[in-house]
């Protein structure tokens, strides 16, 4: 009765996984074959995702699952499975579609890299892991894929292993997310302990269904918060967001994949997936765990958009914008707007992929220069990139009516406005909208408008620890041709090849086209996700919130234009408020704070453990060894002096006796005869005496 695809949903992650292994196995030395394998794999997955998408259209809230026993130990059967519902289906289509274009873009961006094949293998693996997270119907299976996503991100962020900064960023991403995963893991144990199952949906017995939720009862708050800690790590929420900007060390397509389709989406997806746990026992739509989610999201969103204003690296700005958008999604989930949050996640997947690929195109065109202060005037040189980037920027900023991001953002603002607990998140989110428009305008102006500033030395104003992605590449190109200071030559900047611009165009069209199913007039995606039926009502198109957000975005962009119009070598904000700028430029010194607290603490703990190991535990072991040795020497002495000596003495005695006896045996037969005679005589005398 279920469609064929439900039982075979495992094929969706299996295809890219197989592609990854095929590339590693057979196409290490054949870059074009590797790219073809990866892209075909992604294409097949996209087809499968669409096949999976179709049955979910049948009726609102349609859901099917397929469970089986993975293994049994004792009387406990560990069961896993996959689920197909609107959430899964929409995520599958978004991931595979966006992923496909990122793959195509990578073919151009990574051309000439010596590890081209390895890159595509990792990309496919990354995609497979994320698809596994999405289809999982068991928290265990989800966790396994979740960790595979972490592994893939580690491999890809540290893809340029020869760069120490990339290796450090990969390590940081892996360890930071692992901190969150620890809480997640504990949450899984707790959940299993209280409900006895890790399956989400199991014909009424799953942990997200009535019976399971009844069994969990009051511990749901703690379980939800523990699971949320995993989402905090993966989705780069405060205070575990620090890895996400550093993850920019990876190649740009990786950043696009991480920030748009895969890794960071996993956290938001997780919260949405186990949303019944969060909302269990809600009064008026408010629970303690959801309140935590809201405030974490608010802090993250505001903090990240403030930091983004003062960053100079084109990718870092986008990274912080991702952090802030993820915060926004969390807020939306927290206030009860699950559908709105997921819609924003989907829309964000499209326009953030577009922006990252656009920035990749810019970086590629500028010979791996990432400092926006050295760009400028690229509008005329890279027209396709400029137009698509502008579409992405407007979608991110929330320019109303035609861009996907605007509708979803508005939806979130609606949801926050109706949160009964406090109106503060709503106003803070409105401020966030202004800030988002501001920093995106700043980036646009710096990169695409004005005059080129490629020949200014920014060494002095670079934040500590900032390095261009590939100093050697930039150096070789400029020093080899002009012999001047290591800067890219603006004359050689050019538009990227069609293999890179075409994905941009496709994604830009999608960003605009997607808005058709997001409008309040025909909120198809919203009702699809929340399982309601849709009505077309043009009257709802214009809402009061539309004007509010229009005003806010206009204010943000206007302020941006006003401030950054004449932006030169020095950032205008730096001139007006140097202290604030420094504070933001250095990411609020959170990295330094962690360095001084968490890292220092764990280093101290490590040193203390080392000392304890060396002197206390080792000492104990040595003391026991000493006692053993003492016993040993005692028993050795006893052996030597007691037993050995006894044996020796008896031997000596025997030998002495033998010597004495042997003296008697003189060999003189006459002596023997004499002795016999004497003996007989003595016997005779004895008899005589007896008689």
């Amino acid at each position, binding site marked *: 009765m279920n469609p064929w695809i439900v039982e075979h949903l495992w094929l969706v992650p299996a295809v890219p996984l197989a592609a990854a292994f095929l590339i590693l196995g057979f196409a290490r030395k054949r870059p074009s074959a590797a790219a073809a394998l990866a892209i075909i794999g992604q294409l097949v997955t996209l087809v499968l995702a669409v096949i999976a998408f179709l049955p979910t259209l049948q009726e609102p809230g349609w859901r099917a699952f397929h469970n089986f026993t993975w293994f049994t130990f004792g009387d406990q059967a560990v069961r896993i499975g996959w689920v197909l519902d609107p959430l899964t289906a929409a995520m599958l289509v978004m991931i595979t579609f966006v992923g496909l274009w990122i793959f195509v873009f990578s073919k151009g961006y990574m051309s000439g890299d010596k590890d081209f094949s390895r890159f595509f293998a990792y990309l496919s693996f990354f995609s497979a892991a994320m698809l596994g997270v999405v289809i999982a119907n068991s928290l265990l299976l989800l966790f396994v894929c979740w960790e595979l996503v972490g592994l893939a991100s580690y491999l890809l962020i540290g893809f340029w292993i020869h760069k120490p900064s990339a290796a450090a960023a990969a390590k940081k991403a892996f360890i930071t997310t692992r901190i969150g995963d620890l809480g997640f893991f504990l949450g899984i144990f707790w959940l299993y302990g209280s409900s006895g199952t890790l399956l989400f949906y199991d014909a009424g017995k799953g942990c997200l269904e009535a019976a399971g939720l009844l069994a969990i009862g009051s511990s749901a708050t703690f379980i939800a918060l523990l699971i949320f800690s995993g989402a905090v790590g993966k989705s780069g929420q405060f205070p575990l967001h620090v890895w996400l900007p550093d993850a920019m060390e990876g190649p740009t397509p990786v950043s696009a994949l991480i920030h748009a389709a895969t890794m960071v989406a996993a956290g938001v997806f997780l919260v949405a997936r186990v949303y019944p746990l969060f909302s269990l026992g809600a009064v008026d739509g408010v629970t303690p765990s959801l309140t935590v989610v809201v405030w974490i999201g608010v802090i993250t969103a505001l903090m990240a958009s403030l930091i983004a204003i003062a960053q100079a690296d084109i990718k870092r700005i986008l990274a912080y914008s991702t952090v802030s958008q993820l915060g926004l999604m969390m807020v939306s989930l927290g206030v009860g707007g699950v559908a709105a949050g997921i819609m924003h996640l989907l829309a964000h997947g499209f326009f953030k992929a577009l922006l990252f690929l656009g920035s990749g195109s810019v970086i590629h065109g500028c010979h791996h220069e990432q400092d926006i202060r050295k760009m400028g005037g690229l509008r005329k040189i890279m027209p396709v990139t400029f137009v698509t980037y502008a579409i992405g920027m407007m979608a991110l900023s929330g320019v109303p009516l035609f861009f996907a991001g605007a509708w979803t953002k508005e939806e979130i603002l609606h949801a926050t406005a109706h949160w009964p607990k406090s109106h503060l998140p709503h106003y803070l989110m409105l401020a966030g909208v202004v800030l988002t428009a501001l920093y995106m305008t700043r980036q646009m102006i710096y990169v695409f408008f004005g005059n080129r500033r490629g020949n200014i030395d920014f060494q002095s104003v670079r934040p500590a620890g900032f390095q261009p992605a590939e100093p050697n590449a930039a150096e070789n190109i400029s020093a080899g041709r002009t012999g001047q200071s290591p800067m890219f030559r603006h004359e050689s900047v050019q538009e990227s090849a069609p293999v890179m611009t075409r994905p941009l165009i496709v994604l830009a069209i999608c960003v605009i086209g997607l808005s058709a199913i997001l409008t309040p007039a025909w909120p198809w995606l919203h009702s699809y996700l929340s399982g309601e039926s849709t009505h077309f009502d043009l009257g709802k198109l214009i809402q009061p919130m539309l004007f509010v957000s229009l005003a806010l975005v206009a204010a943000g962009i206007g302020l941006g234009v006003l401030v950054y119009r004449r932006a030169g070598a020095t950032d205008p904000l730096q001139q007006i408020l140097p202290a604030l700028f420094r504070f933001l430029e250095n990411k609020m010194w959170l990295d330094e704070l962690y360095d001084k607290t968490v890292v220092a603490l764990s280093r101290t703990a490590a040193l203390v453990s080392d000392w304890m190991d060396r002197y206390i535990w080792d000492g104990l072991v040595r003391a026991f060894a000493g006692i053993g040795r003492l016993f040993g020497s005692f028993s050795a002495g006893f052996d030597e002096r007691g037993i050995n000596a006894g044996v020796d003495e008896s031997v000596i005695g025997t030998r002495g006796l033998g010597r004495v*006896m*042997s*003296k*008697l*045996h*003189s*060999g*003189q*037969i*006459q002596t023997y*005869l*004499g002795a016999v*005679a004497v003996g007989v005589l003595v016997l005779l005398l004895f008899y005589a005496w007896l008689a």
Partner: protein
Amino acid sequence: MTPTLQLCLIVSAALFSIGLLAALSRRHAIFILIGIEMMLAAANLNFIAFWRFGPDPQNPTGVMVAIFSIAIAAAEAAVGLALVIAVYRHYRTTNVQRLDQLKG
């Protein structure tokens, strides 16, 4: 002087003592053999004496034993002399004090 049992026994004891003395004191193996023969003769003399002065002197039992013993002594002397010759051939001496290979 008429022979009596005591007289015979005294002669026999004297003869045995002389033989023993010879066997103990002489160094030459043949003389030791001669001493042993003398002790045997003393024993034979005792057989005869106890028979002659015993309760039944008519039956010649004592003579029979004595003759039997003398025959055995002859055989023993032959073996003993053969041994002496063998020892002499091997060691080029018959001095029993130097034949001490059984010394412990």
